Structures are given as structure tokens and as C-alpha cells.
């Protein structure tokens, strides 16, 4: 009896693996997704930099840019299956809400330490979103923005 169940079990596992396989392997616009994810990280890093520099007045502008990057991701996945799109939207909304919170906090008696703590939460929410996408499309959140990194130190 148990032996008879093995093929069915294997088939179930196979189907489950297929469903859970990186949906991005079949993404319709992988380049657009990659760009949007990279922009989200770029803006997030700018948030952190402005908080570190105590340049709190810039945070609402960074928040606007985060919304723009989020819209770019929505556009990049618009033709994906509804189930994936909905999951991505849920996590994207959560990340956007976290960055919105930082922006809102910056308007009322901003505190750099509290803002940094909120930023860490926002990054965690963003990483949860990134988990939906394959590794080769995800930017490294620790990589600073800018590819060229500017001139050699001798020019400084």
C-alpha cells in the first residue's frame, strides 16, 4: 500500500517544485525587473546616507524616488501571472510603507538613531520582496550606488 503511494508522492513533490521554481526564470521582462530592483536599492542607500548626514529635509524627496522605483517594478511585472503579481505587490506595498514611515518621521522631530532603526526595518521589508526574484536579478544591497566609483584616489 505504502509503495503504491510513492509515485503519487513523487508527482506531488514534482508539481510543488515546479510551482515554487523561480518564477523569474520565466519572467517576461527580466531586464526591467533587474533595473527596478537596482533602483530600489539605490534609493534605499540614499535614504541611509541622508539620515547619516542628518540631512532630514531630503528624506521626503528620497521617498518620492522610492515610489518611482516601486512603480517601475510594478510596470516590470505587470504581465506576470496574477498569483505572482499579487504576492509581489503585497511585499512591495509593505516595503513602500516602511520607507514612507521614515519620511513621515523625518518631518516631526527627527532623530537619526530612530530613523536608522526604521531604515533597517525598511531594508528587511525590501529584502523580503527581493526573495521573490531569482538571485541573478537581485542587486547586492551592500553595493553602493554607482558603477564607476569615480576617479582614482590620486586625483582626489
Amino acid at each position, binding site marked *: 500500500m505504502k509503495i503504491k503511494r510513492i509515485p503519487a508522492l513523487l508527482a506531488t513533490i514534482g508539481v510543488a517544485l515546479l510551482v515554487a521554481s523561480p518564477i523569474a526564470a520565466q519572467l517576461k521582462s527580466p531586464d526591467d525587473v533587474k533595473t527596478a530592483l537596482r*533602483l530600489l536599492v*539605490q534609493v534605499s542607500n540614499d535614504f541611509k546616507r541622508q539620515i547619516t548626514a542628518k540631512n532630514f529635509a531630503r528624506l521626503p524627496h528620497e521617498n518620492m*524616488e522610492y515610489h518611482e522605483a516601486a512603480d517601475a517594478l510594478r510596470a516590470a511585472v505587470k504581465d506576470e501571472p496574477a498569483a505572482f503579481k499579487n504576492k509581489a505587490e503585497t511585499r512591495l506595498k509593505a516595503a513602500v510603507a516602511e520607507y514612507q514611515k521614515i519620511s513621515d518621521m523625518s518631518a516631526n522631530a527627527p532623530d537619526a538613531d530612530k530613523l536608522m532603526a526604521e531604515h533597517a526595518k525598511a531594508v528587511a521589508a525590501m529584502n523580503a520582496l527581493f526573495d521573490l526574484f531569482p538571485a541573478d536579478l537581485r542587486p547586492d544591497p551592500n553595493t553602493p*550606488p*554607482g558603477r*564607476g566609483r*569615480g*576617479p582614482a584616489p590620486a*586625483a*582626489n
Partner: protein
Amino acid sequence: MLALLLGCGRKPKPEQVVDLYIESDGDFLDFLPDTLTCPTGARVRLTFHHAGKIISARHDWVLTYPGRLQALTKDCLDHDGILPQDDPLVIATTPLCDKGQTVMVEFIAPRAGDYPFVCGTHPEDMRGILRITS
């Protein structure tokens, strides 16, 4: 007197005009290319295109002297990217522009050397070198 007369007869050296083009790496914080070259004394006509399509960040192109990159970066950060017109660190600068826009600046290339340039609003990320040859 003779030298003066000889000098009067000399034809002025024709001015060399060099056209340079640079753009942002789409919406990312990079210049493409990040190294430019021109000869000293040339009249440089530099065109900068903001190739972004998504993010509403503004960019420009600001040239400074060798060894003054850190000072310029601090200046840019202190002034939120809007540098005073008579900033002594600035050799040349384009106006700030929005995504999709193209702006231009003309200047005479100073003596040979490696001159750093930045975007005034993103001086820590968007950087490059104008190599002026003798």
C-alpha cells in the same frame, strides 16, 4: 619695435574646438563614459544628457581642479547640489537638468592634468576624470 612688428605680422593660432559628450547611466548614479580627454587650450563644448527615464533626480556636470575633489564634494553636499555661481572650486558647470534633458557648457581647457568632475547633486557617486593633455 622689430619684435612688435614681427608680432603684428604673425597669424593668430587657430582655436581648436573639441566637442565632448557624456550622459548619465540611465537612472543609475554613474557617468557614461567616466573618462573624457581633450588637449590643453582647446575650446571645449561639453554636452551632458540626463538619460534617466524613471527617477526624478536632477543631475549636472561640474568640473574642478586636480586635488580638489574632496573639497568640491563637501561643497556640493553642504549646498544640497546647488553651488554658488562664483565657487572658486568650479572650473565649469552645466545647468542642472531633469530626466530626458540635455544641457551644454563651454570652457577653455586649462593646463594638462587629470581634472575630476562630479554631479553636484550626487557628488559621492557620479564622478569621472577629464584628462587634459599637453
